[in-house]
């Protein structure tokens, strides 16, 4: 039998071989940042089109000033969890801000988006319960499911009829089931079919958790996400999300209309045993949340940019993700083609995400672009020019 260290050595060998092929994508180091959308990578000035910095707030003066002030006042870190070390006033104020923003009474702030999903899923369900999740859900959701010990079942991506069928099979167990979907799916950028999914959740008296990581600040009249856009917020039991995209920080949260959420924090090991978010992070996140509420023009600009990039890439004949969103995935066929195209874009000063199976749905190889409100027209034209000049064969495969 292979020893534990031999197994690691085997992985190291595969990793080294992979690095030879993918040295540039995996080894890209941002040496300087000039703005939210431009930096220096490997000594080259580069337009950043893979950051998830949807509203471009990472260099916002209000956020930076709030972070600076909090850091000088409260220090650089909390050095422990809230249950052990106590909460800072900012933690509770941010929870109040988020609850008020969503029009609910209850919120928990987590240290990352990953731990928000891990913490909520493991607190909500356990052995003997059931989770039904969309097959395209993020790894943090899969990991939470695995850690929970609950029975885990997939339903076909965005297929409400398929969800209905799988809930029917559960019989009485449907009422101890939590359904998990995402607002905007991170790889293809498509929205959940939320109105239909919420109706099915009501039919079976299950719970519904939606991860709005990529839709907070992006969708909805006031930026609350897909549940707001689909007008089904009152049917959603738990909304999780992250501070590391539109809110330009790091952290995560869960909001809910259910008062039980307040107790769930004491049942959530990923919450209990993680150091709480730093004062600077909390303060910049509060400032960014305020900007989402007071500056809808950022969201309008984001969508203008997303439509511009999507329409022009489509016009060039690229096979794109199924609907316009700030996540635009270009299907580039084979791994060799993907790497070749990625390198050509990189050489022209464009950084997009190279995403390969098994991280992608349907085993696609994707050049994933994420658009920001802070991208200028000139930057987007440079990106489009680079795509137009790629000498790779056009793609024949359609997105499923």
């Amino acid at each position, binding site marked *: 039998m292979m020893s534990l260290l031999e197994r690691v050595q085997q992985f190291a060998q595969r990793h080294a071989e992979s690095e030879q092929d993918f040295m540039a994508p995996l080894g890209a180091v941002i040496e300087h940042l000039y703005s939210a959308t431009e930096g220096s990578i490997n000594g080259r000035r580069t337009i950043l089109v893979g950051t998830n910095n949807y509203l471009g707030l990472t260099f916002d003066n209000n956020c930076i000033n709030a972070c600076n002030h909090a850091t000088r006042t409260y220090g650089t870190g909390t050095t422990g969890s809230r249950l052990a070390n106590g909460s800072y006033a900012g933690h509770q104020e941010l929870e109040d801000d988020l609850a008020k923003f969503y029009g609910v009474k209850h919120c928990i702030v987590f240290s990352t988006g990953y731990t928000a999903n891990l913490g909520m899923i493991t607190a909500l369900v356990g052995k003997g319960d059931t989770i039904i999740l969309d*097959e395209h859900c993020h790894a943090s959701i899969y990991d939470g499911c695995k850690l929970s010990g609950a029975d885990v079942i*997939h339903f*076909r991506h965005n297929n409400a009829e398929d969800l209905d*069928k*799988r809930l029917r*099979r559960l019989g009485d167990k449907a009422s101890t089931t939590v359904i998990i979907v995402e607002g905007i799916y991170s790889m293809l950028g498509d929205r959940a079919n939320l109105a239909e999914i919420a109706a099915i959740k009501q039919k079976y008296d299950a719970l519904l958790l939606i991860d709005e990581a990529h839709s907070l600040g992006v969708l909805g009249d006031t930026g609350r996400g897909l549940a707001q856009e689909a007008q089904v917020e009152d049917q959603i039991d738990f909304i999780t999300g992250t501070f590391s995209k539109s809110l330009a920080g790091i952290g995560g949260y869960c909001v809910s209309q259910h008062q039980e959420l307040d107790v769930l924090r004491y049942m959530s090991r990923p919450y209990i045993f993680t150091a709480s978010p730093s004062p600077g992070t909390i303060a910049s996140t509060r400032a960014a949340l305020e900007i989402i509420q007071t500056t809808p023009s950022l969201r309008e600009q984001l969508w203008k940019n997303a439509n511009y990039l999507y329409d022009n890439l489509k016009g060039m004949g690229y096979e794109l993700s199924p609907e316009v969103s700030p996540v635009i995935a270009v299907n580039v066929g084979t791994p060799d083609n993907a790497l070749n195209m990625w390198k050509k874009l990189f050489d022209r000063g464009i950084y997009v995400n190279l995403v390969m199976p*098994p991280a992608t*749905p*349907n085993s696609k190889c994707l050049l994933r672009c994420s658009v920001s409100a802070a991208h200028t027209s000139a930057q987007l034209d440079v990106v489009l020019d680079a795509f137009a000049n790629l000498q790779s064969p056009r793609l024949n495969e359609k997105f499923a």
Partner: protein
Amino acid sequence: MASHTDDVKSELISLLKQFTKTEMEITDSIHIMNDLDLDSVMVMELMMELEDHFDISIPLNSLPDVNTVADLATEISTLKDQT
């Protein structure tokens, strides 16, 4: 019970043939991922097909103990008996 499992196995093998590109004969001892050259995404798709075909729920967390065709046939038979 044995014949019930045999029936399941026969249907399972027929479904597996649709998922694998290998030409090898599918027998009890065939390892589903390794021998049939299925990646994790294909296994997930296979499980959803099996759920629909047999009208059962196959929790993903039940799969770590399932390696071979015989293991999977037994698991499906057990789940069918529970419904």
